[in-house]
């Protein structure tokens, strides 16, 4: 059996049951492929044992790039390329450069974060995401278990664990 193809999908009605269920499923030894929920559930990252996102570091580096770019650009333009005296100040005087520097820092940091997020999450144009259960976009929480990665347990056993963890229904989902 190939990985990432055949799944059992547990459907949960309530986020408190879901959080509790995640813990139960993980202690039973099952590996959870992914959990989908219609709204952010506090504590779900910890329950799933996910590592913290490194997005803030990317944001910092993009911000730093913006700061450097803005300062270099302004100092070069107004200090060297086309020196101009404005308001009797030095060619390259720092205070009036600060607003532009701030804006470019924020802009690059924000755009960089969005770009990084899209790339890391593999969200590109015309890529259609796989649906484990369309109701996860409405009012159900959905937990997907990859059968190939949990081959130590039978399909029935996995379904039983999911039901005991609080799933209101368990369905099979296969992708080709």
């Amino acid at each position, binding site marked *: 059996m190939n990985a990432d193809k055949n799944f059992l999908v547990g459907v949960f009605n309530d986020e*408190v049951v879901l*959080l509790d269920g995640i813990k139960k499923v993980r202690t039973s030894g099952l590996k959870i492929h992914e959990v989908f929920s219609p709204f952010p559930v506090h504590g779900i990252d910890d329950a799933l044992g996910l590592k913290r996102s490194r997005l803030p570091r990317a944001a910092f580096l993009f911000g730093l790039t913006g700061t450097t770019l803005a300062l270099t650009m302004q100092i070069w333009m107004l200090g060297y390329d086309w020196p101009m005296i404005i308001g009797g100040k030095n060619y390259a005087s720092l205070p009036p450069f*600060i607003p532009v520097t701030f804006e470019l820092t924020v802009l690059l940091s924000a755009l960089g974060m969005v770009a990084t997020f899209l790339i890391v999450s593999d969200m590109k144009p015309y890529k259609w995401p796989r649906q484990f259960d369309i109701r996860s976009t409405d009012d159900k929480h959905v937990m997907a278990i990859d059968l190939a990665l949990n081959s130590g347990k039978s399909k029935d056993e996995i379904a039983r664990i999911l039901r005991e963890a609080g799933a209101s229904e368990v369905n099979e989902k296969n992708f080709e």
Partner: protein
Amino acid sequence: MAHHHVEVADEQYVFRPETKRKLFYLLFAGILLFAIGLGYAISQEGKGGHHEEGHHGALHTEKMVASNEHGAAASEGAQHDEHAAASEGHGHDVHGGGEHHEAPTWRKRLYTTLWQNNVFFIGLGLIGLFFVAIQYAAMAGWSAGVKRIAMAMGTWIPIAGILTLVLWFLTHHDIFHWTHSYLYDPNGGQFDKIINKKAPFFFWPLAGGTFPLFFILRMVLFFGLWYYFFTRIRKNMMAEDLDPSTEYWYKNRVVSTVFLIVFGVSSSIAAWDWVMSIDTHWFSTMFGWYVFASWWVTALAAITWIAASLKSAGYLKVVNSNHLHDLGKFVFAFSIFWTYIWFGQFLLIYYANIPEETVYFIERMRTSPYSWIFYLNIIVNFVLPFLLLMTRDSKRQLSTLKLVCPIVIVGHWFDFFNMVTPGVMQHDGGVGFLEIGTFLIFTAVFLLVVLSSLTKLPLVGKNHPMLQESLGHHI
């Protein structure tokens, strides 16, 4: 999220003798430094060597005089030529002639540091109440466990009120240039057209140069109102502890909302009155915001610091790293806010380049005892908290919070130093034993008052309607 009710045990802060002793040591250290500093300042009086480094050029002497006095600080006649240029537009044609009110430098220095520390600590007390009021008005749940710390800081308000009145009557002639009656006498040699126009703001309904009735009434009114709201909110808090209904919370919400309106107006006017009017000719439309921003971030750092210290001492079981994270975010965010206000005020004046406005910054940026503080201010109050509190982990750990919060508090003490001192002391100011000693004395007494007040109420309001929400707070 957690639907089950969590029982919260009663917590009472105990002001242990060891802690008290430490604070008394701090107080004695302060008194010692204060005495040494004052003795030294008195012994230096009249030796005249206090600002050799001050004379780098005409620029120096010019601007120091420009902000205020017509050469009252300049007992050497050397300055009198230059400041003719600087006082243009200030409407006085005779200057330097009347040093009849010349105060000894040590006394001005003593009064300046007392006034500066008083203004700084007014902020800590007032913002304690402001913080609590915001939590009520915003119906904030996360802060249920730390509200009482801020409330205890509000205990300082009545003490600050008495101190302010006493200090004002003691020091006003040395600190507030506008209190001199000769400025308002059109026939006198030292008539000041600009200050005379501002006279009603201080003296209404009396004539300029008499008793500043309007000014004093405002001062009394502000402290009276702040104390009134403090008492009302605290009373409701105490009643809530005995009666588990939401009634008192709703009452406090209304009181808090009214207080916030009062605070918005009064804090701003207080900043003009008690700080900005020292440099009487100068004004900035952002000044109310500037003082507020400095007060606010200082008090947030103080609340966070006290909460972190109590947590390390085993108190505040209801406060976990999520609440610390929020407090840390507050300090981080409002350090940036302060910087924004600081820069907003600076850039406009820098760019407009109008002499009567730029003089304020030239005094602080280019003049010997203040220049290093001007730059230190930005490093300590922006760069350090910005970098040290940027990551999530640093905001969630007691150790980093207990490092950064004192830095921010001391940093803003320097901020207030540079707001108050140059206008009074000119070249003769500085941070020495006297200033540090005064700061330690104020800190020790403030903490003694606040921590004693903290013992009077349970540390956490058990019947706070959002305590359960706060326990499940997760970010």
